[in-house]
């Protein structure tokens, strides 16, 4: 393995030396392998509950049907909900988290996000997605939305599956809700919002919140 040593930050000379300590803060190996951490009984059926992050992105909420789930502005723009898993009877470190947004009116899947999640074991024997591994489910804008994407019910589906095949799924109806920058959020989450459209002016229409026929 090579180790990079910074000799000078302004003389700009650096050297590679043989060593093993490059990753002292990074795990200690060029190609580390993921660890395994069973939660519960891996021979029993996996169990799953949906959790979401609140607007502070630090508070985990056990999501219930019809909950108001905050729309959060991610770095890339738009608005997302942060969904995770509270689960047991699977490997909490080798887990794939799938989150999906479903139009409650049409049943159409508007968006899917798949990523690894890691569960942190709680005192109650359940594991909960660590704060940095929640699913980032894009909610708006949605080019194919048939109604507003805020303050009306949408279904979220969540699936977790570990590398050993333990799998569980759950779904709930939630209400994505604008909290941060409400003016911009409600504008960009309106059905008729077009990418790049200015949100400096309030929306002309009153929104479309009821089910309508898909175009």
């Amino acid at each position, binding site marked *: 393995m090579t180790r*990079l040593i*910074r000799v000078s*930050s302004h003389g*700009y*000379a*650096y*050297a*590679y030396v043989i060593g093993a300590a*490059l*990753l002292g*803060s*990074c*795990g200690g190996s*060029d*190609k*580390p*392998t*993921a*660890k395994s951490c069973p939660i519960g009984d891996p021979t029993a059926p996996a169990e799953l509950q949906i959790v979401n992050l609140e607007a502070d992105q630090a508070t985990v909420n056990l999501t219930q049907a019809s909950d108001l789930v905050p729309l959060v502005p*991610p*770095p*890339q*723009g*738009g608005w*997302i909900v942060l969904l995770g898993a509270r689960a047991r009877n699977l490997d909490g*470190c080798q887990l*794939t988290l*799938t989150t*999906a947004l479903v139009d409650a009116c049409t049943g*159409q*899947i*508007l*968006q*899917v*996000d*798949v*990523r*690894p999640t*890691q569960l942190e074991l709680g005192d109650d024997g359940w594991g909960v997605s660590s*704060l*940095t*591994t929640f699913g*980032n489910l*894009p909610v708006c804008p*949605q*080019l*194919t939305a048939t109604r507003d994407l805020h303050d009306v019910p949408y279904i979220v*589906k969540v*699936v977790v599956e570990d590398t050993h095949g333990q799998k569980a799924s759950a779904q709930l109806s939630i209400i994505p809700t604008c909290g941060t920058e409400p003016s911009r959020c409600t504008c960009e989450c309106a059905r008729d919002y*077009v*990418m*790049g459209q*200015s949100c400096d002016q309030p929306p002309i229409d009153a929104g479309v919140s009821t089910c309508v026929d*898909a*175009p």
Partner: protein
Amino acid sequence: MRLLPIFVLAGLALTQNGCHSDSDPAFTPWDLEDLNGMNGFSLRVPEFEVPAGHESQNCYFVQVPDLASGQDIWIDRVLSAINPGSHHVNVFQVKTIIGLDPAMGTPTTLGAYPATVIEGGDDYANNPCWGSSNWADWPLVANSQQANIGELETDWKLPDGVAIRMTPGEMLMVQTHYVNSTDQPTMYGARVGINFYQRQDPTPPIEMGSLFATQQNIRICASNPNPTFSGTCRIPGAVTIAAANGHFHKRGKRFSIYSWDGASIEHPADAAMFYESDNWNDPPMVTDLSVAAPAQTGVWWDCEYQWQPPDEFTCADVNAKDPLQANDCCYTFGGITDIGEHCNVFMYYYPKIDSNVFCE
């Protein structure tokens, strides 16, 4: 802050620091014909050097010339030629100005046409040319990531009867990204040329549209070294996908794009895959596709990664960039290839739908 491995210096000194290798028998400088008049137009980025151990991202702005007495022009072939070391060349239509402003650029020329340039250098943290805030509503016109010695040119001939619409006077942005590192060296200078061939057939063509999809909330961490991130993008109308390429950085191991039925959250079957790349620094652009995407369906893409330590920076630099400060050498979204990652889909389809298709 740049890191320059000492062992690289000796090797690079003869090839990268002012000593062009145009005489290298393995490298033949590209030579594109110059288009003018009804044939189309040619853009030529002024040649520049990229210091060893550095990256360079520049944003050039140029207006579409008037080739048809004020009428829209239709482009049915895009031929680009790019010297090795290029990470990407993207051409966008400029729409809403957010941060990156053509008026703030330095005057230059792109071939025969006046232009401005905002040189981003490797100041990814501050320079607007490195930003992504314009991606949402600046439609992609064309792109190429191919620039190896044996294949400097990307010749994209659009399907019969299909063309890109351009309006005289509309602003284009040509973004170049060069890397001069051990695994993507810029050994012959940074040099880019693009020819836009005007369609000669007088019958109205079908307009080509583009789709830009990106997963920006990605994390490739030492403690979880083999993550895969997937996303989906729905298209409201029935279209045919004609060309595609994927884009990620050094940790990227496999990029795949599938047809997606828009109705299932299960991963599409292997048979639905129409694009695959295992090459982060020279990914192919597939231009001969004819993938039908019925209305309300779309695409699913996977970005698979293998964590590895940075080559020219350190994990401390990677950690400093992590917004969550996890101290786990987590690569997050970012343009610099050594410390940032991408997961972007560039796709072209027809007929163009009314709205720009951008998925995140």
